[in-house]
């Protein structure tokens, strides 16, 4: 028994290590990055040789973790919520194949979009794939749930989704850790189950089995140590509080809530506990972080009696993170007066660092297209997305990982000229390469500017796994070698870089300009060492 101060992400990572984890797979993404980072710096993981390298994207990570589960070992795959969209094919089908070694899929949601493009709620993915979902309310629960999730996964022979949210992932608290368990042995080769071959005949049988397990999953939620009905003294309201929503209810009532609270941290919804609450309370308030997942299930499309309250009813805000104050206001509890923000306070948006190579790349690009009025620049996901803001105002889109290249190609198909994509090195190997193949096939007149800072910068400088071979990768994908150019984004090279960019932008075919200089943050970190 040891007490440590851990982020929710770190508590989960330590919990998984202590639960006999053999491999963690991930692509960095806020707020999930610190899970694998913790395992990478753990001496236990080092000693045990737990797999802990970054994967090239979330789909690859998901499939690698499934492979480890196939081999009988406990595996965890971690990503931010939008990473679930990338991993979805393997994720949904892993519920159809089923698992052998415990498989924990972790999605860290980012309500309020602190560092994201949307606030999708990963609980819907668990419902879609028809598997259980765990949603810890505290860092301690994140730790405890890891071992529980592996056991549940192995007893159901299904993957388990764990949903974290920003305020748990990135908040530290006291966590008491327990004893480490041994890892699973290798699944003997003669025990390879045929159920992993999703030919229609097998997939149909598997899917029926998955459907037949649904009641077991509900029973497990009713018996879960993480779900409980807390009695109240008044039944005017019944509260359903999920994940960290539970904390906000407790905070709003100062730990003395008069109404019964159904705390939910395991899905599918526990029907027996839910019935007990609904039988005794007329009005139900659903307090959940993210989208109205529980509320929507309870009210249905009509909500005929109007007794289900939450984000859809307007009692709580429809979008964004919850706060204890939102909950207090929903119950008409007294809250302190607030003062409006002083007009002295100005917006201070994030910006590219002083000395950042992207600054010089954007200066060169803006100069190159200054007299190309038809130019459109399609951006991507990374620090360089900040090129959308002044003083650069350089890009007109940022949608998803890799979309810069595919959107530029589609826009060029439609007649936009010149169509230019700006993408980082890590985003390129994550999801940019497949778009290049299409552009090679049609020799599309687009220019792809790969801003290669040698790292995954926005999430804190994780490995970018192209091994410094971006030009070889591009040529290997079929890009004409004379149209794969390399520039060094430095002020002294400005004129030359503009010239190279213009030559390639004016070329009526696919061209790639790799603008290569190390991230100023990783460079500084190395210098300090």
């Amino acid at each position, binding site marked *: 028994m040891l007490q440590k101060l851990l982020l929710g992400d770190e508590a989960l990572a330590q919990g998984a290590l202590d639960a006999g984890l053999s491999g963690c797979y991930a692509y960095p993404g806020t707020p999930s990055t610190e899970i694998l980072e913790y395992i990478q710096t753990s001496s236990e993981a080092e000693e045990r040789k737990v797999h802990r390298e970054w994967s090239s994207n979330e789909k690859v990570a998901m499939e690698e973790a499934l492979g480890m589960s196939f081999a009988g070992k406990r595996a965890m795959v971690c990503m931010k919520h939008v990473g679930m969209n990338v991993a979805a094919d393997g994720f949904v089908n892993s519920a159809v194949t089923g698992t052998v070694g415990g498989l924990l899929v972790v999605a860290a949601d980012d309500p309020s979009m*602190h*560092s994201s493009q949307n606030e999708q709620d990963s609980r819907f993915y668990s419902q879609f794939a028809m598997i259980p979902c765990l949603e810890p309310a505290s860092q301690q629960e994140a730790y405890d749930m890891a071992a529980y999730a592996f056991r549940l996964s192995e007893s159901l022979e299904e993957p388990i989704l764990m949903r974290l949210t920003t305020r748990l992932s990135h908040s530290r608290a006291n966590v008491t850790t327990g004893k480490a368990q041994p890892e699973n042995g290798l699944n003997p080769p003669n025990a390879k189950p045929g159920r992993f071959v999703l030919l229609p005949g097998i997939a149909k049988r598997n899917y029926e089995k998955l459907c037949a397990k649904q009641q077991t999953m509900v029973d497990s939620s009713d018996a879960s140590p993480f779900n409980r009905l807390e009695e109240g003294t008044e039944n005017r309201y019944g509260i359903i509080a999920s994940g960290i929503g539970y904390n*906000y209810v407790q905070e709003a009532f100062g730990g003395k809530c008069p109404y019964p609270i159904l705390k939910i941290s395991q899905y599918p919804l526990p029907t027996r506990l839910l019935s007990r609450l609904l039988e005794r309370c007329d009005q139900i308030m659903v307090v959940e972080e993210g989208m109205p997942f529980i509320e929507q299930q309870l009210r249905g499309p009509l909500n005929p009696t109007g007794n289900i309250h939450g984000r859809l009813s307007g009692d709580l805000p429809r979008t964004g993170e919850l706060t*204890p104050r939102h909950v207090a206001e929903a119950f008409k509890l007294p809250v*302190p*007066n607030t003062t409006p923000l002083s007009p002295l*306070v100005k*917006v201070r948006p*994030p910006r590219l660092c002083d000395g950042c190579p992207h600054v010089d790349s954007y200066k060169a690009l803006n100069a190159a297209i200054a007299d190309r009025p038809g130019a459109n620049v399609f951006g991507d996901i990374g620090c360089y997305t900040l090129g959308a803001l002044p003083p650069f105002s350089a890009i007109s889109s940022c949608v998803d990982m890799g979309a810069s290249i595919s959107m530029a190609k589609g826009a060029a198909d439609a007649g936009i000229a010149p169509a230019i994509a700006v993408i980082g090195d890590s985003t390129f190997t994550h999801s940019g390469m497949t778009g290049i193949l299409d552009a090679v096939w049609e020799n599309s007149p687009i220019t792809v500017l790969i801003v290669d800072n040698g790292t995954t910068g926005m999430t804190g400088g994780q490995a970018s796994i192209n091994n410094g071979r971006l030009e070889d990768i591009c040529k290997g994908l079929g890009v004409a070698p004379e149209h794969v150019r390399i520039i060094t984004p430095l002020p002294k090279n400005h004129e030359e870089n503009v010239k190279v960019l213009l030559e390639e932008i004016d070329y009526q075919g696919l061209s790639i300009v790799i603008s290569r200089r190390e991230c100023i943050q990783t460079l500084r970190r190395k210098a300090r060492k």
Partner: protein
Amino acid sequence: MKNDIVLAGVGGQGILTIAAIIGQAALKAGLNVKQSEVHGMAQRGGAVLAHLRLSDAPIHSDLISQGTADIVLAVEPMEALRQADALAPQGVVLANSRPVQNIGDYPDLETILAALRAYPRHVVIDADGMAQEAGSSRAMNMVMLGAISPFIDVPANYMTDVIEATFARKGAEMVAVNFKAFEVGRAAGLAIA
């Protein structure tokens, strides 16, 4: 007891170092801790925020509600004002007076400082300058940590123990500079505590 602290600054100034040292010291003192941080995009030179809660009772929420914070500690004056809404009526404002003027429309500094000094309980100090005098302008955070130390229920020597552990690998001189920075900050805090 409870200490609800909102920490504010500009990305890269290192408010998380302050929060981490208080958190570790509080853990040693047997207190419950919750410390919510911001990572990712906002860290790139933008306004950043952390919530730190200490209590001898269980802490429910990771977030501090508006109008209930005991202390707003800001390592940049405009950022102090941005978080002033968090403060409870008798709360304390601790602010570094040295601005980070990385935006075009940064308001008049004296007007900002006057607004901060209008709070009944405030410590507005040139933490950068005090750190420089102590031996290194990079110890600005330790001046601010010293300034907050009289207002929280964690023994000061627990904090200096953590400072020592944090800077030990950088040598005895670095530890001494950070101790000195902590002490001058603490003296400024004690003046109104």
